[in-house]
């Protein structure tokens, strides 16, 4: 069993009333020791509720939570040995920064010298050594959040839970603190669950990204896997900036070859023998904007340029292909004109096929593979 194992977790608020809300639905997730897992999803998808259940601040409606093989589902937070940092930087203004960080250690009833040593160590890690004797009132939000992080970490918790800790910060200190969190996990080897709605945070920090939607876990895999082989069209569109292109198309097999039809256009995908999916006529073809090449030679599909965004020396080119808006990340400044007809070539090994009805990735067998 994994270090942290969440088994069929369901959390319903207002059970049996007309305001019943299912926040988390049948979620199963395993986290290994020393791993950072990011819970990613739009607001209201149940990621914070999941975190609060792990913390013990909420009682699951059903399902169990195990830490290090021990069932902690009904244990109070104080006995779970978990550290938590909230979006709202919680700092006790009435006592010094030192006292703030020492607070959880005092609850553990360890010796004064030991507390002093641990506080010093963790304060140094977060660059707070100069602040220890002063009171936190008047410190900026980034520093306050560092104090909160230091406090959560000082007691060397089994698991560190971070609930969008960087959201209230300005972009610059956000990047700085992000580096600190990554460094922390490397040096202190603590297991971290990180809730965020910011995909770049999740993709850069996490060993694995768990994407949630409407209380359900859609996919949990490495950032690379999530990016390249999304479990469904939701993940495909949610991850990436801009998200994956989704083109309504048809898969046709003809004389030993597999073809993709988009409207009245058609191109050869691969030979029938190489086809990895079972034959589904109606599907959605997914491809990332950087896996499409624009060419003036006849290629896979032809379309009209509708809009060009220049980003420094790169450009995002919007091309209308039989009514589908396809975005292409062009590596240089795009020289073509609006309304110009262009050809595009899709990198074959980057094409992902989704079922048009369910939106599921046709090549992935299981939705939440634990790879």
């Amino acid at each position, binding site marked *: 069993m994994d270090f942290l194992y969440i088994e069929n977790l369901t959390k319903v608020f207002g059970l049996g009333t007309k305001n019943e809300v299912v926040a988390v639905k049948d979620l199963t997730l395993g986290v290994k020791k020393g791993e950072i897992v990011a819970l990613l999803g739009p607001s209201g998808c149940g990621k914070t509720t999941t975190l609060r259940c792990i913390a013990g*601040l909420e009682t699951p409606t059903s399902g169990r939570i195990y830490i290090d093989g021990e069932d902690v589902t009904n244990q*109070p937070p104080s006995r779970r040995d978990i550290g938590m940092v*909230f979006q*709202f930087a*919680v700092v006790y203004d009435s006592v010094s920064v030192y006292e703030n960080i020492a*607070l*959880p250690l005092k*609850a553990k009833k360890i010796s004064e010298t030991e507390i002093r040593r641990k506080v010093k160590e963790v304060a140094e890690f977060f660059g707070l050594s100069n602040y220890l004797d002063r009171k936190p009132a008047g410190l900026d939000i980034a520093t306050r959040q560092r104090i909160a992080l230091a406090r*959560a970490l000082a*007691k060397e918790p089994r698991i560190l839970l971070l609930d969008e800790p960087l959201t209230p910060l300005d972009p610059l200190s956000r990047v700085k603190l992000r580096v600190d969190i990554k460094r922390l996990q490397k040096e202190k080897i603590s297991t971290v669950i990180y809730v965020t709605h910011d995909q770049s945070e999740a993709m850069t920090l996490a060993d694995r990204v768990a994407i949630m939607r409407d209380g359900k876990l859609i996919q949990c895999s490495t950032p690379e896997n999530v990016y390249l082989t999304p479990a469904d069209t939701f993940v495909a569109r949610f991850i990436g900036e801009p998200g994956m292109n989704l083109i309504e198309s048809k898969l046709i097999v003809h004389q030993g070859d597999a073809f993709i039809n988009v409207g009245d256009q058609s191109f050869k995908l691969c030979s029938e023998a190489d086809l990895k999916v079972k034959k589904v006529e109606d599907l959605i073809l997914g491809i990332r904007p950087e896996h499409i090449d624009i060419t003036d030679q006849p290629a896979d599909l032809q379309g009209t340029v509708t809009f060009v965004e220049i980003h420094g020396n790169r450009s995002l080119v919007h091309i209308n292909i039989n009514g589908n808006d396809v975005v292409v990340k062009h590596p240089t400044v795009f020289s073509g004109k609006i309304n110009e007809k262009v050809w595009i070539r899709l990198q074959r090994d980057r094409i992902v096929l989704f079922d048009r009805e369910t939106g599921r990735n046709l090549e992935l067998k299981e939705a939440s593979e634990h790879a």
Partner: protein
Amino acid sequence: MANKFIKLTVIYIFGIIVLVWLLFPFYWTFLTSIKDPKEIIRVPPLMWVSEPYIENYILAFSNEEFVRGLANTVLSSILALLVSLGLAIPASYGLARAGRGIRIRGKDSLYFTFITFRMLPVFVFIIPFYLLYRSLGIFDTIGGLVIAYILIDLPLAVWFLTGFFEDIPWEIEDAYVMDGYPRTKAVMNITLPMALPGIVATAIICIIFTWSDLIFALTLTSKFAKTATYTLLGNITFTQVKWGELCAQIIILSSPLLVFSFYIQKYLVRGLTFGVVR
């Protein structure tokens, strides 16, 4: 610039009118209390006194009935307040926290029920209360009065305190729990100290209501448990109205509240606006 000047002038004039309108009766009461009997009935009346006449205050404090009334007012108000706060603090905490960690079935209806007690005019209660108190044998007792005053205090306290508790970021309490302390300690060490301004403001408002109550005292007491507001009426007899003594007693009765309210003004303003805005 000129515009701003006119605006400020209008605000000040209006403010002064309101202040005079509010404070003049109080000033007149105070003035009457330090006038000697001849000056009180003098026509036209004087707007000030050259030499304060303190005999009225000496009389008031030697008036056994008034002193006992005062003691009853203090005792019943404070007892009712303590019981009400003791019930309202956990109730409001629960109502504010419902849906976040704890579940309360029918939370909104419960809250509304509390408020409804405040909406009903006191006169709805007094006749049934009179009959009930008679048959229960708690008529004219401090205990009986305290029960009636809880009816005034409790809804008010729940209404105000729920607003206050809702305004405290729960993360602070949750963080304390995550730091390894039990929830009860988090409430005692974190949430309650943060709610203290609200609790103080609520207490003052409750005290003001019960302190100045006349209806319940008049209906539910007759001799032993009479409050100060009731005994004031003793100054109005068939043959005369003892204006000097009456006014001195009014000043004595209201001054503790005045001093109190003055010291906690900032809490009071916050407390009052809380309830209204929500």
